[in-house]
């Protein structure tokens, strides 16, 4: 049973720069985040996925379109509502090294957001909650609370980042490439943890990545972005098994597939074809085609 969306973007657009040389970072972005579900936002660098993340985090204001929080337009929300939004929507960054203050201990790092997110907790209850949160992200409180970030591994640091968002009482987590800087064997643990939180706590997850395989692993819905537009979107399995947009097909064919070696002519990407697909996809494609239930793609008019 899919619940009502907690955050919804409706035809949001954002450009940077002034009239002559404006860069269209995001165009006509429409998607929704539901409690207990993950939406994967997939694209290459420069595709606009980071801009979308920043729009959701309210770092940027949309030039047009609207963002709804629990059904209410954010622009029409007062200061109190905005404060609630800020608490509810938290971000996990890509770089586990840069996202924790090296001068602080793990205890301090979790204590502060806890004080903001659950101000009524006092004394011993605070210590217990910190320990609980650490256990929930599969860390041993006794072993890590007094440590500084540089004494922990990348995977442990990301888990602390996740614990921090929980301490704030986050209902929406925007995860920007949370595992791309982690060692391969550690990535799965972190992704599994995100999945668990989604399932057990009903958190809504916006998972931003360039890696299609992990998108399939954690998300129910997928949005494929290129040059500021969402070119294809819908149920992750439908989109990935039956891609319609030429760019999605290009992306899928470029993902490393050990079944097909480079000398296999099937594997070959023709650079001219690639360039042509890119050029086409850069144009504004305002026609939306429904390919199937919960599967849509843009097409040139």
């Amino acid at each position: 049973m899919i619940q009502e969306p907690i955050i919804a973007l409706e035809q949001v657009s954002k450009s940077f720069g002034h009239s002559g040389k404006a860069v269209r970072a995001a165009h006509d972005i429409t998607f929704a985040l539901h409690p207990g579900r993950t939406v994967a936002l997939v694209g290459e660098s420069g595709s606009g996925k980071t801009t979308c993340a920043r729009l959701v985090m309210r770092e940027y204001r949309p030039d047009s379109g609207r963002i709804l929080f629990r059904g209410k337009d954010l622009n029409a929300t007062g200061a109190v509502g905005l404060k609630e939004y800020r608490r509810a929507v938290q971000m996990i960054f890509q770089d586990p090294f840069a996202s924790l203050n090296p001068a602080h201990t793990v205890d301090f790092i979790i204590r502060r957001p806890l004080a903001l997110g659950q101000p009524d907790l006092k004394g011993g209850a605070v210590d217990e909650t910190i320990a609980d949160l650490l256990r929930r992200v599969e860390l041993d409180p006794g072993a890590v609370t007094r440590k500084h970030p540089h004494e922990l591994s990348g995977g442990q640091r990301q888990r602390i980042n996740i614990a921090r968002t929980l301490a704030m009482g986050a209902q929406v987590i925007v995860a920007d490439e949370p595992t791309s800087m982690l060692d391969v064997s550690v990535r799965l643990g972190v992704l599994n943890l995100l999945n668990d939180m989604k399932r057990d706590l009903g958190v809504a997850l916006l998972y931003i990545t360039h890696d299609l395989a992990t998108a399939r692993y954690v998300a129910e819905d997928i949005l494929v972005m290129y040059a500021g537009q969402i070119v294809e979107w819908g149920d992750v399995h439908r989109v990935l098994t039956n891609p319609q947009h030429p760019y999605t097909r290009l992306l899928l064919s470029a993902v490393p597939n050990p079944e097909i070696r480079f000398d296999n002519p099937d594997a070959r990407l023709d650079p001219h074809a690639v360039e042509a697909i890119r050029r086409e996809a850069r144009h504004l494609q305002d026609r939306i085609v429904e390919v199937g239930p919960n599967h849509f793609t843009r097409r040139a008019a």
Partner: protein
Amino acid sequence: MTADPLLSVQNLTIDYIGAEADFRAVDDVSFDIAPGEVFGLAGESGCGKSTIAYAINRLHKPPALIRRGRILFEGQDVLDLDDRALREFRWSKVAMVFQSAMNSLNPVLRVEAQFHDLLKRHRGYSKEQSRERAAEMLRLVDIPPERLRDYPHQFSGGMRQRIVIAICMALDPKLVVMDEPTTALDVVVQREILQRIDELRRSRGFSVLFITHDLGLMVQFCDRIGIMLRGNLVEQGTSEQIYHRPQHEYTKQLWASFPSLHGHPVRLERASG
């Protein structure tokens, strides 16, 4: 191996010397690379793969110390080369592409000047000759030669990486060492570049030492693969063997860490906690 290997690493052991204790980065590693072969070295951070790559080019500085072993290139121990021989060796026999190669281009020199630097030093080329050679190299990596007079910042990350590869090819090296050359690039650009390198190595006959953590990519690109864990080479074999019949626990664990795009979605756990 019927013919003589191009590169033969034998019992290589490298330590980083600390004030009190030493860190063994590479522990008794041996492998060969045949002429025209692509050999992959896979492993996670700290496993020693980059240390080996640096050692081949004698790029290490203190506190690194090569304790034991030899690195034979065409039968000669690289570690014994004197300064003059080393200068000849670098770029013309073995070339290296780094991950942040985009940053290893000199930002204040035009592309053609960077080629000229190299070609003048090694072959005594004039500016005209360098320009011709540079244009030829750029064409090999799908960059229009008209862009020779541009500066590095005028290119995208992927194009800069291609320029670096072109410079590496300029002296026709027999071995190209690539340390995570495409990790920071988008997947389509990665495929285009590696595809191109594959074509070039088949036509020009050079070998490649390809270092990455992406096993799937390795199986696509490499002929043989070595798996490294904490300084040890734990498994070695053809791509086919490593993909279909991995022997070592760690190799299996690595495979299990990659969710696949195909087949039924399952929840993956690490093999041992």
